[in-house]
């Protein structure tokens, strides 16, 4: 048995089901733990009061919106170069979750910006580049579904995904490169954290929860895509998996 046999939709299909259950359970446990820390352990912020508690979903959603894009572009690129069906399917399965995370990051950002900055929205570098990310996700999904031939749709949307990668470092470094209302990175590898350790822990646990959720829901979606695209394959009707 080799690891690579899982690169065929047929062998991956039942595995994805088992994995998705594990990742959903992990996501649920981490969410309960993270929210407990976020609402019952982490102290009130001395500057922002209780409004800062939006951080426990805002930062994880924003991180995932960028991370999922990179993973999506990676699989799209693998599918483009090696012509592997499952890679392209994986890329398509990730896009709606990435778009959802981007929307959540923007929405919670608006609701945090209003009491903190006095405005729901500004056209500054961080916010605008994150909005561009949402358009990239939507464009990718629309382009993919507008091309009838699935293999051609895979290739065209993969090119879009790869070109859009340039936006991710722009989002990440926008707070350093330009003057923006948005604060700098909350977590840095080179500096000690600027917030209370329980706040940081709650945020990291919630980020892990969002990560596990994204994997779980994408696995369920990739199974759906496999069912649609391989619907005339005999193995699908034989296995009830």
């Amino acid at each position: 048995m080799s690891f690579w046999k899982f690169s065929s939709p047929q062998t991956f299909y039942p595995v994805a089901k088992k994995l998705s259950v594990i990742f959903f359970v992990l996501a649920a446990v981490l969410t309960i733990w993270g929210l407990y820390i976020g609402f019952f352990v982490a102290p009130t912020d001395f500057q922002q009061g209780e409004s800062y508690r939006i951080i426990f979903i805002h930062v994880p959603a924003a991180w995932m919106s960028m991370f999922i894009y990179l993973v999506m572009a990676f699989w799209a690129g693998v599918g483009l170069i090696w012509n592997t069906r499952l890679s392209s399917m994986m890329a398509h399965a990730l896009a709606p979750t990435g778009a959802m995370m981007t929307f959540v990051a923007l929405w919670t950002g608006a609701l945090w910006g209003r009491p903190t900055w006095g405005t729901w929205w500004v056209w500054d570098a961080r916010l605008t580049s994150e909005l561009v990310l949402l358009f990239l996700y939507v464009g990718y999904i629309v382009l993919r579904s507008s091309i009838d031939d699935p293999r051609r749709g895979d290739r065209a949307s993969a090119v879009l995904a790869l070109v859009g990668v340039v936006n991710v470092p722009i989002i990440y470094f926008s707070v350093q490169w330009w003057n923006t209302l948005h604060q700098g990175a909350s977590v840095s590898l080179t500096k000690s954290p600027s917030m209370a350790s329980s706040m940081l822990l709650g945020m990291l646990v919630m980020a892990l929860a969002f990560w596990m959720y994204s994997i779980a829901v994408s696995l369920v979606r990739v199974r759906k895509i496999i069912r649609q695209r391989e619907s005339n394959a005999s193995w699908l009707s034989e296995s009830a998996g």
Partner: protein
Amino acid sequence: MEWGSLNEFLAMGGYGLYVWGSYLVTVVCILLEILTVRRG
């Protein structure tokens, strides 16, 4: 963090609308995603 009462918890120090508005929409998004992905 200790909350004196449920009302205090819901009020979020006057930021209830913003905090719960964020959490509620996130939960709705996740539920909608799970529902759509389970269909078909």
